[in-house]
């Protein structure tokens, strides 16, 4: 192997391993799942997205906000693909504080598709007060904000243990989780068998619920993931063909001077 290829190998080996080495603490190996959105042609499983949205609204939304999403996003291309009619119905079920009106008063009205997801708490203080001092993080970009991404969130959801290992003392309102950093979490185990009743007849096992909600959260973090992968693939194919053509052109051009050497 030439010096340069060794050099490049080093370069890529190191640079591409560094982000993984940021987290210094020894961590439990994450439960790696095969996600529908993985890989070169990854797409979200629509049914899973819709179920995941149901899990979010019925379970997570009682504590976690999703400030960056609007109801209209639910019908956008590459998302859960609810119809626009369905989204209107979904939005109309929430109450939105609007105003001030002409009399200077705030008023409540049914939601519209253009409204942002309604937050469960008025502000961070209220959220902390209701959750034993802990602030349930906004879930809009949660998957991108955690090392390990979708697998990490899934692992945390599946990583609750009723009895902490020997020697670990938990205060009141703190739970043991195998995958959470520090192993302590203030969120009680959110999902268990049949916490949500799926309308499409899918068995609501703990694994299924977690998988669906993580799929939904991944879409929320990366709403244009499908477009990105689709355009990415086209670009790679285009560049590959162009690269081969340019290489042949280059070779032909350089043939002009070869005999003189």
């Amino acid at each position, binding site marked *: 192997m030439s010096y340069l290829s060794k050099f490049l190998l080093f*370069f890529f080996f190191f640079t591409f391993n560094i982000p993984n080495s940021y987290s210094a603490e020894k961590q439990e190996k994450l439960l790696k799942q095969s996600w529908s959105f993985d890989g070169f042609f990854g797409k979200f499983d629509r049914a899973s997205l819709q179920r995941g949205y149901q899990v979010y609204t019925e379970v997570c939304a009682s504590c976690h906000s999703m400030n960056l999403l609007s109801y209209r996003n639910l019908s956008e291309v590459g998302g859960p693909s609810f119809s626009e009619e369905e989204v209107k119905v979904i939005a109309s079920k929430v109450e939105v504080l609007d105003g001030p009106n002409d009399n200077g008063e705030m008023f409540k009205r049914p939601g519209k598709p253009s409204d942002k997801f309604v937050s469960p708490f008025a502000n961070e203080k209220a959220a902390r007060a209701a959750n034993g001092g802990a602030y349930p993080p906004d879930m809009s970009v949660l998957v991108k904000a955690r090392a390990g991404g979708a697998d990490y969130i899934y692992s945390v959801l599946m990583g609750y243990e009723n009895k902490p290992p020997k020697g670990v003392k938990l205060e009141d309102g703190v739970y043991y989780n195998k995958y959470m950093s520090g192993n302590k979490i203030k969120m009680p185990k959110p999902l268990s068998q049949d916490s949500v009743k799926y309308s499409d007849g899918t068995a609501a096992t703990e694994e299924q619920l977690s998988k669906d909600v993580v799929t939904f959260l991944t879409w929320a973090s990366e709403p244009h993931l499908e477009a990105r992968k689709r355009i990415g693939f086209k670009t790679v194919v285009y560049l590959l063909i162009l690269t081969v053509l340019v290489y042949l052109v280059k070779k032909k051009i350089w043939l002009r001077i070869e005999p003189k050497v």
Partner: protein
Amino acid sequence: MSSNDSNFNQNEIKPVHTNKVGGSPFKGVVGWIDNRLPIIRMFKYEYLDFQVPKNLSYLWSLGGILMICLIFLIVTGLVLGMHYKPSSSEAFVSVEKIMRDVNYGWLLRYAHMNFASFFFIAVYIHIFRGLYYGSYKEPRQLMWLIGITIFFLMMATAFLGYTLPWGQMSYWGATVITNLFSAVPLVGKAIVTWLWGDYSVGDSTLNRFYVLHWLLAFGILGIVIFHVIALHIVGSNNPSGVEPIDTRDTVSFAPFTTSKDLFAMLIFLLAFVLITMYAPNYLGHPDNYIPADPLITPAHIVPEWYFLPFYAILRSIPDKLLGVIAMVSSIAVLGLLPWLDLSKVRSAVFRPIWKQFVFLFVLDFFILMYVGGMPAEGIYVLISRVGTIYWFLFFLVIAPLVSLTEKTLPMPNSIHEYENWKKQGKIKTLKIF
């Protein structure tokens, strides 16, 4: 024009030439324009007929690649700037709005973000090329110095840009780096307050960082133009380190160099597209998707990957002021290299001892990069200290010592002789692809 223009004696009667119209090799409209504004002939002389050593390897394509990176960064940055809001309460949300609601905003933002990383990948290879083939030696010292200035500006621009999304790493990175100035004796605190425009990193800091990010980006562009002008005066170095003598040694820039560089650019772009489209956040830090919170410090504050070697040097020294001095001088010392390396032979191909030390230096760079991403404790501190010592030893001691004592290999008289030697297997050299 005489060389003593500045002492022009207005009382002496001499002919003047204020009208310089003419001299164009072109005819017609093009010639008419070129006679009055000679940029067309300049382009022809400097980019079509320009003679380039024929034995340039793909390592010489990085210059063009860097130019492309810079242009892409400026173009994507321009459009991002039309949607971004540099305010501590809106910055994070405005970046996410770009990612969600602006047409292809996700593409612009991911491209801008990853082009910054790829800019650094390219510049590190570019600097390595210069180091290995002695491109910093006479007559290219000034180019080398301009290059190092660009590198400094790049680092400043990248750092400023990283604060703009106003995530946790943005905020705490800005806090750590600006706080370095507090190490300056006596006026340190005042400098930091002046930089922040406040008593902590906050809204006014973000606002000025945004302005400076723009300013420095165009500053880089300006100095890059100097770098390129200087290149066209001294000409390209080449793997043999011997200057071209006649047309047997050179090719014209177009179509030879252009076709070769285009191929290299496409390979580079392929790597860029793969990362940007399939792992756009791989080179970033997940904490930067958590909005900045002055009350919560992240467990490990780490800069972007391309700063890690210098971050390791900073942390390897227990004293804050000395650490900052070491970090800045670790880059500045590159600028002294033309005067520290006294060897008359440019290319490391003919310098068997120096070559080993250069590769060791590259290894040192990666080791420092690795420990820079690790917590500053235990074995990592020791490794970073050894790495830092070698870094400075390489420039300040090894370079002059080796250049004075080393027995260099026999040199070819010309580039075409070098090429023949290579064909006959007399020279062991970098083979690319």
